[in-house]
């Protein structure tokens, strides 16, 4: 069977054979990645004893990580790990003259109504500073343990559960 392309299809394939122009930012990304490859040293050959030692260290690390997994899943409960994450301090304020207690409940404390109380700094003004990871954070205030309030100074969030909710946007900033 002849393998030549049907001449009637040739004009279509002429279009396909055009090499597309490369985009500058794609080529730049490629160059950066290749430079990193060029700079990589030749792989180290490990002696068998060193291999066993490396394996033992890795297993010990895995065990430590496994038992620490629960703490890792609650970042605010593991401040010692802060050096591995970027945190931004954000202040939350609520004016509530009639309140006896105010807490803030949100994605950062497993929505625990009692975990994060605000402090009354002067009559009717409740405040707390929180260290939050970059991203979007949903939260609400809970007044006297029963009344849910959105943050009047904050950005309203779509309410999934019929209670007033706010959303904070902690912008991720590249490390300098």
């Amino acid at each position, binding site marked *: 069977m002849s393998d030549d392309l049907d001449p009637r299809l040739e004009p279509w394939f002429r279009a396909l054979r055009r090499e597309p122009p490369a985009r500058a930012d794609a080529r730049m990304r490629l160059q950066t990645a290749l430079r990193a490859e060029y700079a990589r040293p030749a792989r180290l050959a490990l002696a068998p004893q060193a291999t066993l030692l*490396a394996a033992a260290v890795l297993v010990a690390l895995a065990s430590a990580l*496994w038992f620490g997994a629960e703490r890792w899943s609650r970042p605010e409960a593991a401040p010692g790990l802060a050096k591995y994450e970027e945190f*931004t301090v954000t202040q939350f304020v609520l004016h509530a003259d009639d309140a006896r207690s105010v807490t803030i409940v949100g994605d950062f404390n497993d*929505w625990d109504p009692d975990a994060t109380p605000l402090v009354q700094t002067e009559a009717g003004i409740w405040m707390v500073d929180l260290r939050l990871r970059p991203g979007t954070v949903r939260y609400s205030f809970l007044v006297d343990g029963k009344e849910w309030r959105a943050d009047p100074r904050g950005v309203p969030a779509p309410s*999934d559960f*019929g209670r007033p909710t706010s959303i904070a946007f902690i*912008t*991720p*900033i590249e490390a300098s």
Partner: protein
Amino acid sequence: MRSRSRLRGTLRTISAVLLVILITGEAEAQDLRLRERLEPGTAATVIALMDSARTLELPTEPLVQKALEGESKGATGDAIVRAVRSLIHDLVTARKALGGEIGEGELLAAATVLHVGGTPGQLERLRLHRSHAALSAGLTGLAYLISRGVPAEQSTDLIVAMLNARLPGRAFATLQELVETDVRAGAPVTTAATAHVNALIRMGPSDRTSGGRRP
């Protein structure tokens, strides 16, 4: 040569075991938090949804937070399950719209864009900037502008303009601070956002576009 390939094989096996240990450990911790707070039937359904999410290679911590939010606010089991399923759908839709292998931060921010009223088509417009270091900041900024009330398409125009100008992440933090100040002073949000974006672009990528407080 043979000992090198044996070493490579050994290290690969150890890495695979480590990965299984880490993933299993994290999954168990998440399941425990849900079982402690949710009614048993709801917990079982949400845990099953999370297993599906893991199979789909989606982050699961946001699903845990969504379920705990519902429990905290006294929602019914059905409402909690609906909200978790909806979030999974947003995550998948966001990943498809942005394409490629985007990071978890970008994926979560993109899902938030959809949740607050953005469309997959609007996320698609940011696809070109998938490898931009400030993409996550851009997506967070987009979610912020839409939430604040700037029409979604216009919000996307503004954010795309900032990304095209190669502004760094802190420029998006600065934008938010400036818009918030104006909004609290009573200025219309779209006017404020447009003016500040234009100003930031004119300033260009520099140290003056610093914003946000750092510990």
